[in-house]
């Protein structure tokens, strides 16, 4: 197997905040990302799934060097990004790009679609000929399914799905090798979401991109991922091959996320509801439960889970899970899942 292009080792991000006012000033530590490891090959997609506050967006920003990690390393094609200074990192960003969640809010409303897409070119290649920039911009628009004659239109003249296409074109215009998509479809109509997912999948195949696709919904990442990492409170609960994960999740939290997905069928939906059990909210990040961080919401917990922290360990088929009871629990889904 080829060497991975991205290697993330023990990555951790901690935010510090202060409470209590001047006299009783107290420092609080929030472990947003807490020891994440993974590798990614060219042409491969890692889905990252978890609830709000699970640290998935912070992980993305730390990988790109937009947030300085407190611990750990990010290796990109053998070079350590985490050790680079601002200017070196800036140059590397040509290869590492991100697409944001809210397609409308992330575009400058006073710039035309063409200017938005071309801006990275002006920034990195200020001497590029105007004609060449325009040609490349029009080409990008075609690639993402926009009409080149829409080049002079403003964001408000586009629908949400089209705005996300503009965002994707902008992030691809520098010909990056890694693309991180941070909830790229959750602000879109369900009817449009599939267009964007299919587009990203298509582009990845064509361009051989390494892709990290972040979502809070397991159903959304299924079609695009090769492997899926499930995060909870900054930690990886499970990292599994897609086929395995959707057939038989190893971690109770993965199982809970799967059961939360609504089914467009009245009878099946009612039956599925009876079967779901995830209650309560994620605990406050300032008061992390002892032992397994998921134990207070887990119906399968035993005494041990309240005391011992389960390590992320490798199972026989190569998948990773952080649960004491992974071997004995059978969380298989009743439906055969193909690739």
């Amino acid at each position: 197997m080829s060497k991975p292009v991205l290697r993330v080792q023990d990555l951790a991000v901690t935010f510090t905040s202060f409470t209590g006012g001047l006299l009783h000033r107290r420092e609080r530590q929030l472990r947003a990302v807490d020891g994440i490891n993974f590798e990614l090959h060219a042409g491969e997609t890692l889905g990252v799934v978890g609830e709000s506050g699970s640290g998935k967006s912070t992980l993305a920003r730390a990988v790109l060097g937009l947030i300085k990690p407190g611990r750990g390393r990010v290796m990109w094609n053998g070079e350590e990004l985490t050790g680079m200074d601002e200017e070196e990192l800036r140059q590397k960003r040509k290869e590492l790009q991100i697409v944001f969640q809210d397609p409308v809010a992330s575009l400058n409303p006073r710039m035309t679609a063409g200017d938005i897409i071309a801006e990275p070119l002006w920034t990195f290649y200020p001497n590029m000929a105007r004609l060449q920039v325009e040609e490349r911009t029009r080409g990008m628009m075609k690639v993402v399914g926009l009409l080149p004659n829409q080049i002079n239109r403003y964001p408000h003249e586009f629908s949400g799905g089209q705005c996300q296409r503009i965002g994707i074109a902008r992030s691809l215009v520098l010909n990056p090798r890694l693309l991180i998509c941070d909830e790229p479809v959750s602000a879109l109509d369900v009817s449009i979401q599939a267009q964007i997912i299919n587009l990203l999948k298509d582009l990845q195949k064509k361009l051989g991109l390494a892709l990290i696709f972040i979502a809070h919904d397991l159903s959304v990442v299924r079609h695009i991922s090769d492997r899926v990492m499930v995060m909870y409170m900054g930690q990886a609960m499970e990292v599994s091959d897609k086929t395995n994960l959707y057939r038989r999740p190893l971690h109770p939290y993965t199982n809970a996320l799967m059961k939360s997905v609504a089914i467009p069928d009245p009878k099946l939906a009612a039956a599925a509801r009876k079967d779901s059990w995830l209650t309560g909210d994620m605990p406050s990040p300032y008061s992390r439960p002892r032992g397994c961080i998921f134990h207070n919401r887990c119906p399968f917990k035993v005494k041990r889970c309240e005391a011992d922290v389960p390590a992320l360990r490798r199972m026989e088929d190569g998948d990773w899970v952080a649960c004491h009871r992974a071997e004995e629990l059978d969380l298989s889904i009743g439906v055969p899942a193909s690739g």
Partner: protein
Amino acid sequence: MPLLSVSNLAVEFETAEGAVKAVNGMTFDIHEGETLAIVGESGSGKSQLVLSFMGLLAENGSVSGEARFRGEDLLQMKPKELNRIRGRHIAMIFQDPMTSLNPFLSIEKQMMEVVMHHQGLRRDEARAHAVEMLRAVRIPDPEERIKQYPHEYSGGMRQRVMIAIGLLCAPDLLIADEPSTALDVTVQAQITELVSELRKKTKMSLVLITHDLSAVAEIADRIIVMYAGEAVETGTVDEIFYSPQHPYTRGLIASVPRLDRVSDDELHAIPGNPPNLLALPLGCSFRDRCTEAKEQCFERPPLWRGESGRTSRCIQGVEGGELVTESPAGGEG
């Protein structure tokens, strides 16, 4: 008599680029204890429809038609009369629980205000009632949590607080506009469960507005599918999910990614984009995106009604249904 009877309702906005018809001749009833889902994409008019009879349209908007609540036309009411109905008899929950709550006021204050104003309860009564409602929507430790401010609640809890506020005056009709869209799937599932529980306990009628058909599969009695300001299909929840007649409805159902099925390589998407109301195509407004469009679709599609009362506006008709004759104005003749 239906609780709410909407007939031939139309909403128009004056914009710099011209008049925009956001809602175009909607007619429907909501009965007591019934849950009606209004489903459509951005720009389909589903929110404006509801905002119009709640008197909450933006300033450049105007509404025509009728919306009779227990026989009284909401559209003819003076603001003072409408205020008596809103909150007390009809309550509304919006999509974003963070922007709907006042960040400077404690939850306690925001909840007590509502009941003291509408029901004239004393402070202690109002507080007890508010705590009870928080308990009903399963906020843990409500006596303590009620003193907190919105930022101290998680997104899911805030939405539950919004539902509790909506329920405070025991309204006859609760309207929820995308109540769980901005939330995690796990919280969406919890909100769905909460709503279906409340529905069983009370006689309250419910209107749910959403772009995601799967979100209402379990809780709706009837569904209206809207496209470009019009109802393209209406029917019971079983009719819509198990025998959808309109190509757009079929597209909406197919576009939901499912985990309970073997997956295909390609996800199903409805091609194209939600319609631009300023430049609707002639004839059927869904024509450009419809994979089953024919030459006839360049003319306005007919309205069909099935035996059960279900309707579809498409040349394909409704199984065993008949054509509805319409007056040129757009309403039913």
